[in-house]
């Protein structure tokens, strides 16, 4: 349904065209009489008001507001009716084409039959509904069905419709084109789609990236090489979702860890962490002194999620040089690895003035297990009120 607003319905205008001269005459006459009436009202008003620029301006503005109002009211009505009509029409055609495609899939119909029995050749609206139907049915994830749908899409020459959209001025139409071509695995326009990657329009950029991931299955992340714009978390979430839901070859993300764009580096760190690419740990460790604190934070998290015990010494060494958020990351990381040998380091951090640091250190001690819990219980005897509260918090299993 989201496709609706972009297409113009092609009516059969023949009959309407014949009566255009008569209609125009009536409309002009009507407009003429309205203008006359308005003029009469204005004259009547001016006769009763002192003649000056302000009065004239006010009267003309009243007219402007009134005429605009008269235009707005039918616009509201027409838009309401038009949207309802479009919805019904779309649904009707959608159902009709769905049936036709199912008949084609079970072998009761040929592509030519579908072409002859529908208005695909003459109506863009029909072509677009057909593309929607094909894409919806193709979501079944059955390879044979998918291949047949693709063949039908090409036989009906709907790819031309999609390619045409790439050249449209409007960015949202370009996106429809990218989605359709990438869904149907039409690779002839890859270069054009690649060119959209550096566009300022973020939506177009995301769609071109997603499209390329589908269209270039052997080098799906090639777009990262030339990623100049910030690679937003929203883009990252979409890309990650695509990886999970499709059979896409996952690359070694450490290949981009030396990228000049920090947002790409952060994405790769997240991917290494989530996809548990343990072989990347040495490369990740190389970034531990990165200039960007956010990157550094991700490096710490990634190293610990990869269970890189060798990173602990380095993390402890850099602890005092870091800002509070990364100090918390380091403490959290040590807790995650449940290293009993680090209990003294963690205990030392309980002396901090910062509530958050004390809380995180306590949590990490508790995570170590029985030894940690015993240490916290012992510490709570002589602890100040704040620390006692924190220890009670950490040891409360209900929180």
């Amino acid at each position, binding site marked *: 349904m989201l496709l609706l607003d972009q297409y113009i319905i092609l009516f059969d205008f023949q009959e309407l065209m014949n009566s255009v001269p008569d209609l125009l005459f009536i409309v002009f006459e009507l407009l003429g009489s309205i203008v006359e009436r308005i003029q009469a009202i204005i004259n009547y008003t001016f006769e009763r008001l002192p003649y000056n620029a302000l009065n004239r301006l006010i009267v003309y503005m009243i007219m402007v507001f009134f005429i605009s109002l008269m235009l707005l*009211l039918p616009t509201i009505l027409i838009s309401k009716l038009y949207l309802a009509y479009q919805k019904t029409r779309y649904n009707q055609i959608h159902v009709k084409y769905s049936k036709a495609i199912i008949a084609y899939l079970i072998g009761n119909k040929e592509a030519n039959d579908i072409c002859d029995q529908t208005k695909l050749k003459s109506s863009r609206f029909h072509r677009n509904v057909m593309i929607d139907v094909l894409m919806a049915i193709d979501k079944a994830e059955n390879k044979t069905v998918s291949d047949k749908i693709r063949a039908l899409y090409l036989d009906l020459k709907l790819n031309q419709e999609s390619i045409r959209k790439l050249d449209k001025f409007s960015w949202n139409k370009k996106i429809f084109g990218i989605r359709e071509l990438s869904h149907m695995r039409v690779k002839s326009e890859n270069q054009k789609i690649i060119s959209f990657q550096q566009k300022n329009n*973020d*939506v177009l950029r995301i769609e071109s990236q997603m499209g390329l991931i589908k269209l270039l299955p052997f080098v799906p992340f090639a777009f990262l090489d030339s990623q100049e714009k910030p690679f937003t*978390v929203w883009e990252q979430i979409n890309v990650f979702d695509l990886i999970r839901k499709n059979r896409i070859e996952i690359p070694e993300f450490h290949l981009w860890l030396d990228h000049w764009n920090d947002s790409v580096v952060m994405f790769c760190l*997240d991917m290494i962490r*989530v996809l548990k690419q343990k072989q990347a740990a040495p490369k990740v460790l190389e970034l531990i002194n990165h200039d960007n604190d956010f990157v550094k934070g991700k490096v710490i998290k990634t190293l610990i999620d990869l269970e890189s015990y060798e990173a602990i010494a380095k993390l402890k060494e850099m602890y005092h040089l870091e800002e509070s958020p990364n100090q918390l990351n380091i403490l959290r990381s040590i807790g995650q690895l449940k290293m009993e040998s680090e209990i003294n380091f963690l205990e030392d951090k309980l002396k901090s003035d910062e509530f958050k640091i004390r*809380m995180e250190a306590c949590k990490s001690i508790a995570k170590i297990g029985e030894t940690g819990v015993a240490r916290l219980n012992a510490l709570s005897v002589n602890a100040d009120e704040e620390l006692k*509260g924190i220890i009670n*918090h950490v040891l*409360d299993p209900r929180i």
Partner: protein
Amino acid sequence: MNYDELIRFISYFLDKVFISYAFLLIFSYTALSIVSGIALNYYLKKNSFVDYSVILDSPLAPSVSVLVPAFNEAKTIVDNVESIYTIHYNNFDVIVVNDGSTDTTFKELQKAFKLERVNFAVNHEIETKEVRGVYKSKLETYSNLIVVDKENGGKADALNVAINVSDKDLFMAIDADSILEPDAVLKLVKPFLERTDRRVIAAGGVVRIANSCVIENGRIAEVCVPKNLLARMQVLEYTRSFLMGRMAWAKLDGLIIISGAMGMFEREVVVQSGGYAHTIGEDMELVVRIRRYMSEQREKYKIEYVPDPLCWTEAPSDVSTFGRQRSRWTRGTIETLTDHSKIFFSPRYGAMGMLGYPFWFLFEWLAPLVEVLGIIYAIILYFTGNLSLNFILITFLFVYTFALFFTTWAILYEELTFHRYEKKGDVFRLWIAALLEPFILHPISLFFSIKGNIQYARGNRKWGKMERKGFKHKQGSKSKVQLLAKKN
């Protein structure tokens, strides 16, 4: 200069002031509506490609706390907390703060959600009144519910306690009577994910009026135009304000208010800028302050606005409650504007200083005052024979046609964008309300705005009592809590 000349000079000067003011106001509103139309068009196109479900199970999605301050909400609090659990989001918790209610608010919560006291250590990053206890639910469904019982300190204080308790990246502050759309959190989180070189520090969404709507299991089951005329006129007012005003201000980067009924903020920025202030208009004040803080830190930032209807609230349906609300809003506006007068036309604060603040000062604070002065001036001129009745009538017609045109424009935007009023005759009913609004809602609103100014001048800083009638629930619909209680 003799007496007559002086009077003539003053009269000439006042004529020019009132006329310039009126034309500037009309120009500003028209310009804002055009900007808003462009922004809405872009948003709708952009949004048509968005699949919000990708955020749901993404490990990259931020964590969110939903903060609910509650004071004497015994009748509705359980339903309202339950309605929060209809939202679609994974990484979130709900923090309800009982702000020293004198009724049974806390007992209702305790009973319904089987609360038990836990040893929660609260980080007092923001100074607040004393916390009596922190509670968690024994029910597994509500394992992420935290209820804080505290001494009464006002809405801002309750929100500050909730911020102290929260350990999430973002927080969403809502009113206890707000009904959220299921995808409200997803839609508000998205702008934070789209951050580029400018840090997104807050995001607001559209609040709609739920009077006469049918509520089922904490969700809006049926959108209806309010039967009460006062509430129906407020629907128009909200549509104009949210769909035309705030949308445009967000586009111009001059947005200085996010509704207290629902807004999302980056926790760290709010803590660093001192949390909610103990003012009457704490929602507006917070936005202005975090913006000031970011500008003074010379950090690039932005505040985003989502035009989708994300939250429904009950509008006052009687004049006295409406009046109290409007007086409070006026006092809140004045307080915020005077507290932050430093940013008035200061380029250091960007569009907020150069556009947002001056607009609010001129057309939100001063507009009612200028209008009343204008009416008094016109009456004086009429009785001294210096103004004809025809001119008064034509001026009134000018204002009326503009008001009607502007409201109709807002209805058109609503119809072209979200068209939530789908029933036959709904739009017609709204338009009839638009015809009457300048004669009913506007004078009442004007009266209470003036009252708010007077109250402020006299030093009244009280929040006032807000009486709620409650929502229309679909018959037979049982809440999840009721079902769980029955099961147990």
